[in-house]
């Protein structure tokens, strides 16, 4: 589903990604960990076709980037730490707008399904700017899964959420992953990453330095291993 080979990204003379190789299969939930400035968001923005790679090959669901970006975007859902929603529109209007942008045929039906799924049907006519951060993030997930994408990218989706909202988000993330989609999530939360993901990759200094399958490491040992990788 996600194939990255020798990916290099430089901003001017400054390289951020220095030859990233990554593979995420359908049904896999990969958590991408790494310190600030490691290049996690840059990698996700390239996979989301929001940024062009300097060198290297990127394929999503069989389509190459940047040449087949439109086909990739059709199969991609993205949730970032910003909700990508319009505060002056209601939840329903936001989803309806994105449904039209994605060319969905039965927008009203799908919007209703997604509102049920994220538990916001009763608040569908409220303006998004009146929502709490947790509700906005649930709606952001609704926006990302509106067109039923095959690949989902989550960029630190738990940022700014309280415990309850984060737990609710975990439920949605598990549901999405259970559908056989390829999921790549960046995070700073080691415990949560270990809990949710089927594989953990560590990105440091622009390359993937370590990769552990779920069960390969005890969750309590993860911080020590993570530190040894990122401080090496």
């Amino acid at each position, binding site marked *: 589903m996600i194939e990255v080979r020798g990916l290099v990204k430089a901003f001017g003379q400054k390289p951020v990604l220095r030859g990233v190789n990554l593979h995420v299969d359908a049904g896999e939930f990969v958590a991408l960990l790494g310190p600030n400035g490691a290049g996690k968001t840059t990698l996700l923005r390239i996979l989301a076709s929001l*940024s062009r790679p300097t060198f290297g090959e990127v394929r999503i669901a069989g389509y190459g980037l940047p040449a087949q970006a*439109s086909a990739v975007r059709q199969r991609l859902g993205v949730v970032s730490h910003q909700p*990508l929603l*319009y505060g002056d529109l209601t939840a329903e209007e936001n989803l309806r707008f994105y449904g039209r942008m994605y060319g969905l045929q039965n927008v009203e039906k799908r919007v209703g399904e997604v509102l049920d799924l994220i538990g916001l049907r009763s608040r569908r006519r409220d303006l998004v700017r009146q929502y709490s951060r947790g509700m906005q993030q649930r709606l952001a997930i609704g926006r990302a899964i509106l067109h*039923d994408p095959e690949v989902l990218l989550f960029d630190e989706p738990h940022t700014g959420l309280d415990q309850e909202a984060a737990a609710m988000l975990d439920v949605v993330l598990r549901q999405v992953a259970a559908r056989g989609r390829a999921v790549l999530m960046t995070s700073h939360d080691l415990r949560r990453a270990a809990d949710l993901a089927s594989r953990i990759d560590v990105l440091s200094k622009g390359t993937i330095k370590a990769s552990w399958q779920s069960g390969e490491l005890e969750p309590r040992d993860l911080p020590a291993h993570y530190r040894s990788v990122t401080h090496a």
Partner: protein
Amino acid sequence: MPEDAIPLNPSGASSVAMARPAGRSYLRAVAAIIWKDLAAELRSRELLGAMLVFALLVILIFNFALELDVRTRATVTSGVLWATFAFAGTLGLNRSMSIEKDSGCLDGLLLAPVDRSAIFFGKMLGNLIFMLLVEAMVLPIYSVLYNTSLLVPGLILVILLGSFGYVAVGTLLASMAVQARTRDVLLPILLFPVVLPVLVAAVKATNGFLQNLEASEIMPWLNLILAFDVIFTSVGFMVFDYVVEE
């Protein structure tokens, strides 16, 4: 939240039907962006309110600054009008793109599986509607304050064509400027030198219609505006993708 709410889809294939014809999807995306901008503005009235207040202030300042006789006033009307439209338009263009950038919504638009020129046209036409609305409100007020009749059909055509060219290049440059920290300052600095041919031609054509000049004297200016409208729209269509992508 209901845990069993997502219907499992063992095939893994997407279960949501998409509209296929590319042309229809393109127009649908353009219309969706215009609808979204209008619906959001109808609620907040931030953009139109700011543009209108600014335009009225500019007209009032000129009104007090140019204490001239009626005949002299008639000769400066076109300049004052287009200066007002240009300043108010810059405010609207900046605000329209800031709304997209501040909440990360520009990324949301860029993630949609449509040709990115559809985003350019959607934003451009939305900006054009806002600018025309402000102009429609400013014209009668100007007529009263300056004691000049502006109900000239030719003038409406000039305003339509001039505003189109202005928002075409303005939307493109606002998309560039919005990426910078100094976007409020950057847009006028980028925009006014580029849009100058349209503004000069619009001032001349407006003056021609208000002074009842011969069509042969006005047409070259109208043709010039039309040519720049085509050039600016084509450039926006071709380069918008490169402007917004990192």
